[in-house]
């Protein structure tokens, strides 16, 4: 009889199950239709309100404004731009500035982050503690605060050009920004470029030949050393052979400002320092955990098979460490790109800054935000697509 209570329960459930609204499939269809109705209904309602509001406030809609004159100047631009150019040109300038910051930031943050990640693993207690302090300090402070701090340091605290800080020869930091030397162009330099590309092609060919020789004779070929020698050595030989024409264009004080060399504005410098210092603290942890994650037994086994140090690193350790490092690293690169939108807070004219100006001038907030969101979504989604392809390729197979 003990079974009966369960059986009773079961029978009641079954009887109610036979009702149509308890059928899981029917329920599923019902909820999905409800969701569609709710989404379409709210979109209709919101769009209706928006039309009414825009009409009442006499705000135009559509992207017609892109062809109109922007009327504002942009302090930093990589391409020609005048206030009389169109909004479309202004957006292009902003987008290029975003790419400039993101590109430089990613490279510098990777270098700094990798160095700190390796320092964190050092057997030297002091060095590893300092690296840890760096990581803990910068990742526990809001990026916006860091940007304000760096910007104030450059813009308010830093001296004028006349008593600029002079940390390295040819490098000046003042409230006008960062000035640094650039190599002066010389006609012989184009031969160096040619030698550089010849070196790359020769390395690829040599690598192919080396592999083939190893397959047939078993003799390995030191491709890393030979390749580096070709890629760096060939241009160097050309450089010396053509008479070593190298002159640095040094910034120097002329009147009230610097002339010569290249310069980054205080805004760009602060944004770059902030993004690099902040992102490097995350990259350092990724690099550290990637290196630690490769089991020591892997390199020991490789050693037992007779592989030598460099080959163990290249064939055994790096492929496994990179499998762990690359996905989170990509998301850090994406974060850096998204975080570069904080430029608007310190007045660096990136895409968001331009859109913000446009929205204030035209009142067309929907279009402005649409442009920013579409741009960042395009960047994010294409990178995650590439990431998914990559992950599928490197995924562990056959287990």
């Amino acid at each position, binding site marked *: 009889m003990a079974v009966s209570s369960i059986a009773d329960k079961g029978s009641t459930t079954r009887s109610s199950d036979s009702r149509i609204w308890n059928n899981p499939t029917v329920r599923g269809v019902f909820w999905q239709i409800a969701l569609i109705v709710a989404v379409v209904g709210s979109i209709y309602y919101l769009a209706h309100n928006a039309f009414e509001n825009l009409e009442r406030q006499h705000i135009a809609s559509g992207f017609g404004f892109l062809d109109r004159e922007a009327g504002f100047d942009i302090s930093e631009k990589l391409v020609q731009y005048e206030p009389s150019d169109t909004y479309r040109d202004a957006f292009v300038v902003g987008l290029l500035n975003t790419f400039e910051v993101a590109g430089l930031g990613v490279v510098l943050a990777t270098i700094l982050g990798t160095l700190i990640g390796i320092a964190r693993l050092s057997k030297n207690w*002091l060095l590893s503690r300092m690296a840890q302090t760096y990581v803990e300090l910068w990742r526990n402070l809001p990026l916006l605060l860091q940007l304000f701090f760096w910007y104030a340091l450059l813009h308010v*605290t830093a001296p004028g050009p006349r008593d600029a800080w002079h940390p390295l020869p040819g490098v000046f930091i003042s409230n006008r920004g960062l000035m640094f030397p650039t190599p002066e162009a010389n006609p012989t330099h184009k031969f160096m470029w040619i030698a550089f590309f010849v070196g790359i092609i020769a390395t690829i060919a040599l690598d192919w030949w080396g592999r083939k020789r190893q397959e047939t004779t078993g003799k390995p070929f030191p491709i890393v050393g030979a390749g580096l020698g070709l890629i760096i050595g060939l241009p160097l030989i050309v450089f010396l052979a053509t008479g070593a024409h190298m002159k640095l264009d040094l910034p120097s004080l002329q009147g009230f400002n610097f002339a010569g060399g290249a310069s980054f504005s205080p805004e760009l410098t602060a944004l770059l320092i902030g993004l690099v210092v902040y992102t490097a603290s995350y990259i350092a942890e990724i690099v550290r955990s990637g290196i630690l994650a490769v089991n020591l037994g892997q390199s020991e086994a490789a050693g037992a098979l007779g592989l030598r140090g460099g080959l163990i690193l290249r064939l055994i350790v790096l492929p496994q460490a990179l499998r762990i490092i690359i996905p989170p690293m990509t998301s850090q690169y994406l974060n850096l790109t998204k975080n570069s*939108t*904080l430029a*608007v807070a310190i007045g660096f004219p990136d895409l968001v800054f331009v859109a913000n100006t446009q929205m204030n001038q035209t009142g067309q907030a929907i279009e402005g935000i649409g442009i920013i969101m579409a741009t960042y979504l395009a960047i994010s989604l294409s990178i995650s697509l590439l990431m998914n392809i990559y992950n599928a390729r490197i995924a562990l197979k056959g287990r």
Partner: protein
Amino acid sequence: MATTTMLPAAGPNWVRRFVPWIRANLFNSVGNSIITVVVGGLVLWLVSALVKWGIIDAVWVAPNMRACQAEGTGACWAFVAEKWRFILFGRFPYDSQWRPALVTVLLFVLTGASFVPKLWRRETAYAWLAAILVSAILMYGGVLGLDYVPSDLWSGLPLTLILSLLSMILGFPLAVLLALGRRSNLPIIKIFCTASIEIMRGVPLITVLFMASLMLPLFLPPGFTVDKQLRALIAITLFLAAYQAEDVRAGLMALPKGQFEAADALGLSYWRKTKSIVLPQAITIVIPPLVGNLIGNFKNTSLVSIISLLDLMQTTQVALIDPNWRGLTSEAYLFLGVIYFAACFAMSRYSQWLERRLNKGKRR
């Protein structure tokens, strides 16, 4: 005589223990010795410069910045002494600032208590409900003899805390629903949840805040307004929910299939299964990344200053505009940094501790 010099290190006990340690960890090779000297020199130089600027040469009491401008003076802490109440509580009526102060303490204590695993009980949830009610009374006033304070005067630390805690409390249930939806068998619900999550995660927070501050008013019926604190709260909540949804989804995916199958075999309905079997286990797995998101969210609330909300970041910016105290940015940002760092560092240490604790049972 030779034997005495051979002894490792004479002297008190701690010297005998530390000298070998220093040798092994700092000077065990030529390269390491060079690194130690260079890094140690840099650290000493930095610390001594900071101590000289921040303590020895600092000005602690001054009526305005003129006393701080003399040659060779360091940090001007007189500025912080003058402005700390504005930075912490902003425009809230001066005589009533004990109210936001009380709210801050209450929220801090309750957050701290919620981090103790022993207190993960139903009563804590009730305590939160009570705390929200008490905080609302204290902030708004208008009852019990308290003066009414409109929400646009709420500022500083209490606003930062309220924004980050409320967005978490409101965002988490939403995150769970989104994660379940993304794992659902129903195609339309799955597409809707996946798209919502990916769009939110694909755009920077600042665009979501701009949407809330510039675009949302256009979509509301004419004459109907929502105050900007609430709009910012909605933006932060939706943004946080998308990130937490991915954490929860990771937990759902980490759960062994047998758990779902066993629940189905027992004849449990979808919601019964989700509530009693799936979520308790899935969420426990992902508590550490969820705490990580809380830290990120706390730091992210500082972005509301860009849409000119008077949070902790913006009160500092406003304090710096005062013509009597111009250019004291390092002092102000250092003060602010200490507050943010203390909160974030405590949370990140807690998260590490929790991770070790949660993994204890699994490491056999």
